[in-house]
């Protein structure tokens, strides 16, 4: 076993063992500590994954998926199931982001356990189980394994929302679980359509169509795209998201928005587009139109929204619309924009949910009508909220810019009446994003302090700063040096575009 293979297994095994240990260790605080340590170890294990064989020195055409490291062992020989993991430039940034956000959430839980729920160590254990599921989804190179990991996430997330959430948490959790389960059913059918037709579940072989007939590809892409559209979420399949976000505890929202949604867009790029490229080409205009509809509808709903967390949740619909628009163009520019948009949204919206949670915890309300004058009583918190909002509206120089601007550029590049119109509308959606975020800032930070805000203490806890600082720095770093995310992605993306347009 090479070092890389060891790391791949460790990335999944450490959080899994950590979850068990966190739940088993006696004492609440000890459990949380153990869990946080496991999350930290996981992050440490994801970083060296980048060291590996990046080049392609072989003969013949470059394979569509070329993992830096892979583990491929037979798992259930009777069913021809393989335990096949691998990491490449498309998945690695997401893997690191997942490990980082989980660590930050565990560390945050070390400081404060959301009230009204169970013990903190159980929450940490559940977060780690969610992490295993998400990391497994990003690493799986076997379609059935991909599906299994995709499903692992669902129930612990349900438990997090239902156990530690707000007042209406049970209904929101049920809606989340049932709605995404509906998506999973479609995914299951899609996976078996592909596996039955191709006779293999190996993603490396499958990428590029693998001799699937036109009809099969159309059916497979429709099923898979619908399944991932629920998770991403793509308008009009998004309505589970605002409820889940509004009711979820802060750490749940952060994981949900930060990385859980990315399973949908990652799946769309790696599985749906990769396995059924002809289907993707066929459905791309529909996908593009829906993505732009998501951008505009998300923005308009945010403009009329009056609850802090709900507004940020709906803003995710708009932001993921840009990511999906990038994917829909099926160009190298668009796919790279989608990848960096994914990462940027994870970082920035994670930060926004942390801040919204902090404001709600302090002021005991999330209603925009009751929040006002935050910069008078808590200037640092208001400043950070301002930074996050500005990053979220896609200010050039911060992380959000690249994904959104270059989704538009990719649509312009695609050319033709439809894509040009979509580019114009998406760019207008960018102005809409600015409108609702500035409205949010004006309501929350400016003006005279409202009764809910007036008694706030100006200081921030050290734990809060520790949890937020990495996200602030990443939003700045990715904005100034997008190559941090994209330099490893260009090879795999070019290969993918090569098989899609073949």
């Amino acid at each position, binding site marked *: 076993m090479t070092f890389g293979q060891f790391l791949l297994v460790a990335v999944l095994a450490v959080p899994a063992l950590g979850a068990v240990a966190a739940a088993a260790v006696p004492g609440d605080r000890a459990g949380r500590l153990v869990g946080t340590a496991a999350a930290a170890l996981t992050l440490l294990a994801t970083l060296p994954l980048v060291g590996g064989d990046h080049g392609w020195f072989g003969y013949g055409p470059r394979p569509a998926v070329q993992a830096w490291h892979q583990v491929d062992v037979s798992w259930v020989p009777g069913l021809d199931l393989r335990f096949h993991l691998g990491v490449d430039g498309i998945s690695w940034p997401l893997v690191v982001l997942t490990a980082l956000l989980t660590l930050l959430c565990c560390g945050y839980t070390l400081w404060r356990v959301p009230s009204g729920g169970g013990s903190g160590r159980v929450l940490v254990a559940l977060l780690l189980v969610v992490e295993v599921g998400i990391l497994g989804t990003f690493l799986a190179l076997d379609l059935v394994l991909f599906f299994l990991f995709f499903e692992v996430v669902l129930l612990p997330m349900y438990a997090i929302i239902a156990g530690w959430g707000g007042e209406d948490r049970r209904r929101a959790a049920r809606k989340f679980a049932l709605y995404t389960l509906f998506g999973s059913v479609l995914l299951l059918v899609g996976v078996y359509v592909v596996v039955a037709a191709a006779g293999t579940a190996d993603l490396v072989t499958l990428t590029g169509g693998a001799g699937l007939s036109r009809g099969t590809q159309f059916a497979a892409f429709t099923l898979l795209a619908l399944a991932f559209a629920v998770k991403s979420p793509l308008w009009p399949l998004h*309505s589970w998201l605002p409820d889940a976000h509004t009711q979820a505890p802060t750490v749940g929202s952060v994981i949900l928005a930060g990385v859980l949604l990315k399973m949908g867009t990652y799946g769309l790029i790696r599985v749906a587009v990769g396995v059924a490229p002809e289907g993707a080409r066929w459905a791309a205009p529909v996908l593009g139109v829906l993505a732009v509809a998501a951008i505009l509808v998300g923005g308009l709903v945010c403009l009329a929204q009056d609850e802090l967390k709900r507004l940020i949740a709906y803003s995710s619909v708009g932001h993921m619309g840009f990511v999906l628009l990038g994917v829909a163009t099926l160009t190298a520019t668009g796919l790279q924009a989608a990848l960096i948009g994914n990462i940027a949204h994870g970082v920035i919206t994670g930060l926004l949910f942390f801040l919204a949670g902090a404001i709600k915890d302090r002021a005991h309300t999330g209603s925009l009508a009751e929040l006002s004058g935050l910069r008078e009583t808590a200037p640092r918190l208001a400043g950070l909220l301002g930074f996050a909002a500005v990053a979220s509206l896609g200010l050039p120089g911060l992380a959000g810019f690249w994904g959104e601007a270059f989704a538009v550029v990719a649509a312009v590049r695609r050319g033709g009446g439809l894509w040009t119109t979509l580019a114009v509308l998406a760019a207008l959606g960018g102005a809409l994003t600015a409108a609702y975020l500035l409205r949010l800032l004006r309501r929350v930070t400016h003006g005279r302090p409202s009764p809910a805000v007036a008694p706030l203490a100006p200081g921030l806890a050290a734990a809060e700063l520790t949890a937020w600082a990495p996200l602030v720095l990443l939003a700045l770093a990715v904005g100034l040096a997008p190559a941090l995310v994209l330099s490893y992605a260009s090879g795999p993306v070019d290969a993918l575009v090569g098989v899609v347009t073949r």
Partner: protein
Amino acid sequence: MTGLLAVALPGVPLVAGLLGLLLPPSPRGAATGEGPARRAAIALGVAGAALALVAAVALLFRVDGPVEAATEWVDLGGLRITLGWRLDGVAVLVAVAVAAVALAVQVYSIGYLRRGPHDDVEVDHRYPPYAAQISLFTAAMLTVVVSGDLILLLVGWEVMGICSYLLIAHDRRLPEAPAAAVKAFLVTRVGDVGFLLGIALLGVGAGSFRIADVLAHDYSAGTLTAACLLLLAGVAGKSAQFPLHTWLPDAMAGPTPISALIHAATMVAAGVYAVARLFPLFAQAPAALAVLGVMAAVTLLLGAFAATAQDDIKRVLAWSTVSQIGYMTGALAVGAPAAALFHLLTHAAFKALLFLAAGVVIHAVGTTLMSRMGGLRAAMPVTFWCMLIGLGALAGVPPLSGFWSKDGVLAAAQAAALDGAGPAPAWVGWLVWLAGLLGVAVTAWYATRLLLRTFFGTTRVPLAHPHDPPAVLRWPVLLLAVPAALLGLAAFAPWFVDRLRVPADASGEAVELVHLAPNLVLPFLLLLLGAGIAWAGWRRDPAADPARFLGPLRPLFARAFRLDDVQHALVVRPATALARVVRTGDELGVDGLVEGSGRAAVELGGGLAALHRAALPRAAAGVLAGALLIGLAVALIGVTS
């Protein structure tokens, strides 16, 4: 060395700004205007601007032709984005102007943002973030100036916008400030939608966003016209050109030094600079130039007439900015970028001077309304003379700077109108020329009115004791008066004129900025006419506002032709109504379908469950009926097979 200086130009203020943001925003001792955090903020702000100025002046001596360097920033699927600088004479001159005004504003702010004589309560001015935001703004503007890549230019462009937003909303005592800040950012952002799309078109066409590659690429006429028109949307937003000018007067809610820096001398000039930077493209797109010419003529007159009826001294200056930038875009439209840039430079000097001097007046009398000023000449002689120079330059009194630069613009427009010179159609030349001449008279009128209402007559504020400002406010004003008076004479210096050549290489035509011809007399006569009418009106009743002669037009001019209301009715209200409709539709329609299907499933299940809960006789009957049905079916199938 040149490269190092080019990077240091935006780099030093950037670092100063980022460090300044780390200082405590509301430190102890903030209310009294003292304390270590405030001193650190002052040191960082002034040092950042001063070093940028040193770098810019050093570059002035090192750069005469175009030089550039770039490294790859990122490659997005074959579209190359570079991180690089591109300097020529124009860039360096504009950089000097920006850095000089920024330094003056940083120094001036030290005195302006502390407890004033009319503050009845101690105010926490939050100086550290304020100074840091000015530094960041300076860095962003200098990025626009030196950038060699359109994406990098866009970065500076938008960061400038957000700094402007933050600084307009800075004064926490003004209830209208946050709304003005949001308006400023949103209106410019709407223009930037076009700017981004224009850049996308250019970059996609050339396969690279580097300005040198874009200028060298051969675009089709349609693409070029479309891209230039889209870019103009962004230019209109940032440079406050009709119809996206509505944010600028409201932006006067920001502190006066900010108005001087952002809303007069630098940011609003960025649009003009961007067009000049890409002028070879615009020169090939006469349709875009024609649109620019119409925009310029409308803006020029709109701003001038709106300035005639304002009572707020800052709003008079704000509208005059709108109008003067109209002269610059007019010069661009008739194909005279050098004249536009010359006016940009003189305008930066005299408008910064005017705003800082107006700030001194506001500081002394505690109001921005001219109806509560008057007779300040005796009490504030230094301010009076500086203001006189500034207003003279604005109106174009020879030999002050504005005279020469405005003459350059008018001469170019005249040449385009009469001789068909330049790339634009002749009617554009006529439009710009006539609007410019009328503008001269109106400008002289409102400049004279401002001077008379503020400094002459009897005082209308009996309680205040106005006085000339302390040194920290006085020196920036005095030093800015020098270029405001004399910069026009630079048009006689060949080294200066050569640096304004666009494009900067040998292909650029030789520039002639001064036109000592008989037609100089025409604008001068119009100037005398405008100033004379204002003076005559004031002589009749020194206590009354000369604006009363506008008659029924006065309220219309005061509200700038009610374009704010138009914008509100056509854009803001429909957008918010649409947002409410979409929200309701999304919650009741899309989510209602989801919730409804859930409820329907539950009810269906309940109904089926109720069917299965039956008393024994009915259950037995059901079982027997079922058995009968199955038996019947089997029998039938058995018969047919």
